[in-house]
């Protein structure tokens, strides 16, 4: 036992360590089933990887593997999976003050906070998600403030934030609902939160107008970020769970005309028509979310209902304040798959669907020639509880191997 415990620890350290990455320039991945997410799945498919990019994808009968390629084989092969909203990297797994940077409580409106200035690429949970097949995360400031800060998009590999960054500033994280009053004395009500948000947006509108006309004005980081939102250079990521908070989010969006993605949306099934009409995508709450607080009316079938209405959806791990410190978007998509969404709908939302909502479909989300070589190898259906990840490849490098 002593020996096996020691060897086990070594195995865990190797598996969980962020520094474990084998550089391989040329890789061939053979899969009994290859879900390219660009057309139908290929039986006995091959993905060729060269210099960090996908070189070719097709049936084994059509593609010959060149000499010198390192060959990996798996039952099921998918594109790297995408967690469309997490706080991992700002929130660490120790859950102590020193590793919790997802929420700044000195002010309820802080659009000037940039995730890139606090993201820890070596955080244990970043690598943990990687080992579960998540290769891209949209992470940053969490829910709980009216505006908590800017989010970024990164790969789950690399030792510095710059190394694997896809987008340094993608969205502004906002929250509507009862959660804000737990973190701030003011705003202490829903309506006050909306009033201060509108006031800031009106100020930013003037700032944006002056900026556009080239008129002199002193720089203001808050207004600059909000002006970027109004100029549609970045998107609002609005966490709202109750039906009335969702409708309020749509009202503010219509008033100011910014791009918006709804987040959480536990009661979205009550206002599907309104969401559909507004043309807003939804990063749905984890289907295994605990039914409490603003999310107490969550339903595992909501992802299926939104997809059925034609509303673009993606999955997220969300924010966890206790144990487990992170959910896994693949596990959450699995529950949606089993509750009406089906395998295809869930796999789409976890790959291309998420890439489209995040505006990064030119680089990730499918196995296509020219895209980033982010590939996951499984020993079975990626959604089955008993399935294991065999290997993970990010930017053409093997970041996890369990073969």
């Amino acid at each position, binding site marked *: 036992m002593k020996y096996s415990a020691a060897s086990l620890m070594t195995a865990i350290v190797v598996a969980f360590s962020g520094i474990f990455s084998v550089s391989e320039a040329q890789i061939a991945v053979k899969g009994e089933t290859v879900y390219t997410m660009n057309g139908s799945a290929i039986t006995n498919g091959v993905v060729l990887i060269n210099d960090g990019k996908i070189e070719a994808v097709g049936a084994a009968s059509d593609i010959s593997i060149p000499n010198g390629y390192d060959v990996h084989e798996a039952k099921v092969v998918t594109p790297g999976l995408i967690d469309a909203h997490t706080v991992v990297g700002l929130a660490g797994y120790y859950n102590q003050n020193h590793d919790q940077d997802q929420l700044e409580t000195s002010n309820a409106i802080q659009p000037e906070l940039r995730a890139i200035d606090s993201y820890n690429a070596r955080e244990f949970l970043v690598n943990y998600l990687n080992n579960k097949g998540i290769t891209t995360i949209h992470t940053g400031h969490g829910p709980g403030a009216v505006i908590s800060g800017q989010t970024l998009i990164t790969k789950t590999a690399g030792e510095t934030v710059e190394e694997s960054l896809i987008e340094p500033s993608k969205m502004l994280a906002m929250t509507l609902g009862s959660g804000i009053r737990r973190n701030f004395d003011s705003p202490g009500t829903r309506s006050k939160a909306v009033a201060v948000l509108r006031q800031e947006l009106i100020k930013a509108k003037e700032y944006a107008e002056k900026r556009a006309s080239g008129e002199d004005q002193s720089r203001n980081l808050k207004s600059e970020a909000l002006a970027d939102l109004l100029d549609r250079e970045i998107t609002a990521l609005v966490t709202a769970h109750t039906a009335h908070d969702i409708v309020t989010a749509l009202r503010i969006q219509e008033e100011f005309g910014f791009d918006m993605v709804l987040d959480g949306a536990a009661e979205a099934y009550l206002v599907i028509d309104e969401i559909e009409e507004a043309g807003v995508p939804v990063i749905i709450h984890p289907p295994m979310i605990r*039914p409490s607080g603003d999310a107490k009316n969550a339903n595992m079938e909501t992802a299926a209902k939104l997809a059925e209405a034609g509303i673009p959806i993606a999955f997220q791990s969300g924010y966890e304040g*206790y144990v487990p410190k992170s959910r896994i978007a693949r596990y959450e998509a699995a529950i949606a798959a089993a509750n009406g969404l089906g395998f295809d709908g869930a796999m789409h939302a976890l790959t291309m669907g998420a890439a489209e909502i995040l505006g990064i479909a030119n680089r990730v989300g499918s196995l296509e020639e020219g895209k980033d070589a982010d590939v996951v190898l499984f020993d079975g259906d990626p959604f089955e509880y008993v399935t294991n990840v065999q290997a993970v490849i990010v930017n053409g490098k093997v970041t996890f191997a369990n073969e």
Partner: protein
Amino acid sequence: MKRLLQLCIALMVLAGTTHLQAQEQAHVFEGAQIIPITGEPIENGVLVVQGGRIVAVGEAGDVRIPRNAVRIDATGKVMMPGLVDTHSHIGEGDGGDGSSSLHPDVRIMDTIDPRSGTFRKAVSGGITAVNIMPGSGLLMSGQTVYVKPKPADTIEEMLIMVDEENNIYGGLKMANGTNPLRSNGSPGTRAKSAALVREMFVEAQEYKQKIEDAEGDPEKMPSRDLKMETLVEVLEGKRIVHNHTHRHDDILTAIRLSKEFGYRLVLQHVSEGWRVADEIAEAGAQASIIALDSPGGKLEAINLLNINGRELEEAGVDVAFHTDDPIVDSRFYLRSAALGVQQGMSRQRALEALTIAGARMMDIEDRVGSLEPGKDADFIILSGDPFSVYTHVEQTWIEGNKVFDRSNPEDKKYATGGYEIFRAASHNHVHE
């Protein structure tokens, strides 16, 4: 109009009563794959239940079908015993308060709401027997209660009586590690925690001795003390200690104290059990474990890995799972064991860990945890493999009564969630 309403209510009451008494007629389930747990799976199985008990279980053709039985076609389904959850906080009860760290006198059964929606949530996840515990924020937070989550007006109707003579229907919750450490400094350290527990058990040993010395003479008996009475039950092996513990050294401390005083120990959570699996096996302690999607969230849980089931199984430890609802939602209890299988636990031991192993940890294995003649008719009907994500619990039966039916929208909403289903989802799990 008023009379019509009264009639409706009368009919509803009547319907409810009929439903609950249907068990007098034999029910026969045919065609399912039956997983009895204590025997090999039966491909074309037959389960006969009557009077709230299992009458027969076996292969089609081998089982006598009673005349006038209600016959239910379960072809294509999988049937197994109702799940046993060894650690849960459903029912909205509470335990000891901040006045002290040791409350063996406190009974959570005095606080549970039998009408709580959390019981319907539990049966939608296939759970038919549950150990409801007070929290882990105190060294001894109170007596736990073993219940069936069936429709009831009083907690008494739900109790699983372990020992009628001594009125035992639960264990004693204890905790060590950081959760019971308190800001007022008592206890402020692990060593002080152990000292306080030992002190109390020494007192209980003396109390027990006084009772024995009295030899039944009421004049010589010590005055009644609820705390001491409970601990005497523990010392006599009638009441099992369920000890919340995470870190490997805390696990060994829990074992050390149980050896010193000779009480029966179920280790709860045992997050680093994989580091001391041989020691747990050697001590003969049982382990009730939890499966989580990631480690961390608290310092004591940073080494909580789902290899725990495999490692404890390999060492020969009796392993069960638990939900610790709301930590793991009762509706995902089957999933917990499936995650154990993902990390190398055997299917058979994982199935046992959801059923008979948990029953052993509550002394109720003669009544629940497997499909055998004479046992309570507590079983679930699944749409497929118990460890597949695509499988749903279709029906849950307790003592021959159907308590959950996914095809009924009123029941299904507890399985999926929905608008105003969980109205009073109070989370009173004490951790800080």
